[in-house]
C-alpha cells in the first residue's frame, strides 16, 4: 500500500515537472528545467521596460482581441508610440465582456503601467476599476466606447453627429455633381443615431448650394441585409431617375451596393454612406460606391496615446478648455465632461481604401 502511494506521488511530481518544464526552449525531448527559470528572462524584458526610468508603457485595451477594427486602432497607437518614444502594448480580453475586461485591468493596475486607454465594454461597470487606477496615479482615457466620467480623465469621441450628417450630404453632392434625386436607406425608424444624423442631413439640404438635390424618400432596412436589399431595389423601381442612395448604416450601405450592382446600374445610381473598407472594397473598385465615410480607427488609437502621454507628462489634467498637440493630427481642445473629438469623418475612396484593413 505504502509503495503504491509513493508510486503515485512520484508520478504526480513527474507530471508536474513535465508540465512545468516544457517552457524551456532547450528541453525538447527530456524536460528538466522549471517554468520559472525558463521564462524569467523573457518576463524580465517586459517588466524592465516598464520599470526603466523614463520609458513609459501605455496599454491600449480594445473591447476584445481579434477584431480588425481594433487591430487598426493598435496600428495607429504603435505609430504614436514610435513618435513619442514610449512603449504601447495591446492587451485585451478574449471576449467583449466587462467581467473579463475588469480582470485584465486589475492585473494591469497591479503592474503599475504608465497609462490605460480603454474601449469600454460597459460604461458603468468599468467606472470603479478606472477610478481605482486613477487613485494609483495611473491615467485612464477611454476611446471608441465611453467609460462613465468618474472612471476616466478623458474620453476620445470618434465623431459627432453634426459632422457625420452634414458630411454625408456634402459627399453625395460631390459624387453626383450637385444635382438630382437622392434617397436615404436607414436602419430602423427608431434608431436614435441614424435619426439624429438624418436630421442634420435635412439641415444641410436647406443650404443654397444644395438646392439641386432633392430628397425623394427615406426608407428603413431595419439593419437586416435582405430587407435593406429589397428596399434599395424598391427605391430604384419607384424613382427610375434616382441618382444617389445614402445609407448611414454599415448593413444598409453594403446591401445598397449589391442592389445597384445586381440591377446593372453602376454609375447611374451612386451609393454612399457609412461603411467599413473591408465590406465596401469591391463596390469602391466597381464604382457602385466610389466613396463613403467613417472615422479612422487608426487615428483614434493614435490620438488616445497622444492624449495619455499629455496627461502622463503633466501637460494636461483632463479639464475642459485645456489644449494639447497630437502629432500629425494637430492640436486638440478638451470639451466639457473631458471629451475630445477626433474630428471629421474620414472619406474612403479608390485612392486610399487599400491602406485599410478593418
Amino acid at each position: 500500500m505504502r509503495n503504491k502511494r509513493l508510486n503515485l506521488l512520484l508520478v504526480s511530481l513527474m507530471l508536474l515537472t513535465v508540465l512545468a518544464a516544457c517552457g524551456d526552449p532547450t528541453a525538447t525531448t527530456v524536460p528538466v528545467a522549471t517554468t520559472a527559470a525558463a521564462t524569467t528572462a523573457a518576463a524580465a524584458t517586459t517588466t524592465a521596460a516598464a520599470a526603466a526610468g523614463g520609458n513609459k508603457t501605455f496599454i491600449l485595451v480594445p473591447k476584445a482581441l481579434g477584431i480588425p477594427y481594433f487591430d487598426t486602432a493598435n496600428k495607429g497607437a504603435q505609430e504614436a508610440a514610435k513618435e513619442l518614444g514610449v512603449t504601447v502594448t495591446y492587451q485585451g480580453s478574449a471576449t467583449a465582456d466587462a467581467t473579463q475586461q475588469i480582470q485584465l485591468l486589475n492585473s494591469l493596475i497591479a503592474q503599475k503601467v504608465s497609462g490605460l486607454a480603454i474601449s469600454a465594454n460597459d460604461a458603468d461597470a468599468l467606472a470603479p476599476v478606472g477610478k481605482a487606477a486613477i487613485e494609483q496615479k495611473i491615467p485612464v482615457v477611454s476611446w471608441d466606447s465611453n467609460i462613465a466620467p468618474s472612471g476616466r480623465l478623458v474620453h476620445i469621441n470618434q465623431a459627432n453627429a453634426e459632422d457625420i450628417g452634414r458630411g454625408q450630404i456634402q459627399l453625395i453632392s460631390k459624387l453626383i455633381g450637385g444635382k438630382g434625386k437622392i434617397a436615404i436607406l436607414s436602419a430602423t425608424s427608431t434608431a436614435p443615431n441614424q435619426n439624429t444624423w438624418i436630421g442634420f442631413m435635412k439641415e444641410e439640404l436647406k443650404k443654397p448650394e444644395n438646392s439641386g438635390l432633392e430628397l425623394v424618400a427615406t426608407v428603413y432596412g431595419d439593419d437586416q441585409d435582405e430587407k435593406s436589399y429589397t428596399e434599395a431595389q424598391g427605391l430604384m423601381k419607384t424613382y427610375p431617375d434616382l441618382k444617389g442612395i445614402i445609407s448611414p448604416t454599415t448593413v444598409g450601405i453594403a446591401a445598397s451596393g449589391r442592389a445597384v450592382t445586381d440591377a446593372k446600374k453602376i454609375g447611374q445610381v451612386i451609393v454612399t454612406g457609412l461603411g467599413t473598407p473591408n465590406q465596401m472594397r469591391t463596390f469602391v473598385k466597381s464604382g457602385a460606391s466610389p466613396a463613403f465615410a467613417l472615422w479612422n480607427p487608426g487615428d483614434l488609437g493614435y490620438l488616445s496615446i497622444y492624449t495619455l502621454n499629455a496627461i502622463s507628462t503633466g501637460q494636461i489634467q483632463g479639464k475642459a478648455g485645456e489644449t494639447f498637440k497630437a502629432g500629425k493630427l494637430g492640436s486638440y481642445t478638451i470639451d466639457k465632461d473631458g471629451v475630445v473629438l477626433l474630428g471629421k469623418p474620414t472619406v474612403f475612396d479608390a485612392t486610399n481604401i487599400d491602406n485599410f484593413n478593418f
Partner: protein
Amino acid sequence: MKLNLIAIRRGVLRWEGLLVILIIAVAFANSQLSPYFLNTSNLLRTTSDFMEIGIMMLPMVFVIATGNIDLSIASTLGLSASLMGWLFMGGWDIWLAVLVALIASIFAGLLNGFLIAKLKLPSLAVTIGTLSFYRGLAYALLGDQAARGYPESFTFLGQGTMGSTGIPFSLLIFGGFALIFGLVLHKTTFGRYIFAIGNNEQASRFSGVPVDRIKMIIFVLSSVMAAIAGFILAARFGSTRPDIGTGLELTVITVTVLGGVSIFGGSGTMIGAVLALILVGILRFGMGLINLQGQVQDIIIGLLLILSILLPRFGKQLASGLNWNRGTIFRLAGVVTVAVLFGIFFFWSRTLVLAR
C-alpha cells in the same frame, strides 16, 4: 462497491494534495515572473474578481456530486440582478428589490428542480433550456438599458473592503458560505445523501433517501446562490445590464471539476473546490501580470482541466498495481501529450507577446 468507494476517497485526498502542490508551484512561478505578484493589496484586489464564481461554485459542488449539472446559473444571476435593477429604476428601495429578486430566484430554482426531480428530465437538457429562458427574461426586463445609480450601502457588497485592511467584503461573504456549505456536505445526513445519490440513485431511492426532495433543494440552493452572486457582481459594477455575467457557468463548472468533484457524481470535497478556485485565481492573475493574451489564458485553463480529468484516472490505475496493458499506455500518452501541449503553448505564447 465498498472497496471502490474507499479507493475513490483516497484518490480525492491525494487530488487535494496535488492541488496544493500546484498552487505552491504557480505561486512560486508567478513571484519569479513578476515583481508585482507578492503584493498584498494586488492579491486582495484581484480576489474580488473571483468571488462571484466562488459563491456559485459552492452549490455547484452539491449539484455535480449528485451526478447532475446546472448550466442556468449565470442566467439566473442575470435575471436576479436585472430584476433587482429594474425594480430599483422603478423607484423601489434597493433592499426590497434585492428581496424580491431573491424570491424570484427561488422560483427559478424550483422550476429547474421540478423539471429534473419530478418530471425526471435530464438536468443538462433542462438547464440548457432555462439558460436561454432566464437570460431572455433579463433582456425582457431591461432591454438595451442599464440600471444604475445604486446607493453606496449596496455597492459596498461588491466594492467595499473591511476597514483599512483591504480585504474585500465579498471575500468574507464567500468565506462564510464556504464554511456552511462544507459542513453541510461533510458533516450532515444531507451531505451523505448527496454522495449516495451520485453513486447510485436507484439504490438510494430503495434505501429510503428522499431523492426528489434533495434534488429540489440543491437546485433551489444553486439558483439562490446565483442570485446572491448577481447582487455582488451588480454591486461591483455599480450597474446592471441584462447580459451581466454571461458565460460564467462554464468557469464555475471548470473550477468545480478541477477541484476533484467527479463529473459522474458520487465524490468530491468542498476543500478541493476551494483550492481549485484559488489555483485558477492565482493562475489567471499571474498570466495577466505577464501579459498573456486572453485567448491564451483560456487555452491554458482548458488544458489544465483536461489534465485534471486524465490524471486521477491514470493515477488510480497505477495505484492498483503497475499493469502495462494497452489502456495504461494510451492514458499515459494522453497525459503526457496534454502536458507537453500545455508547455509548448505556454512558451509559444510568451514568444508571441515578446515579438510585439
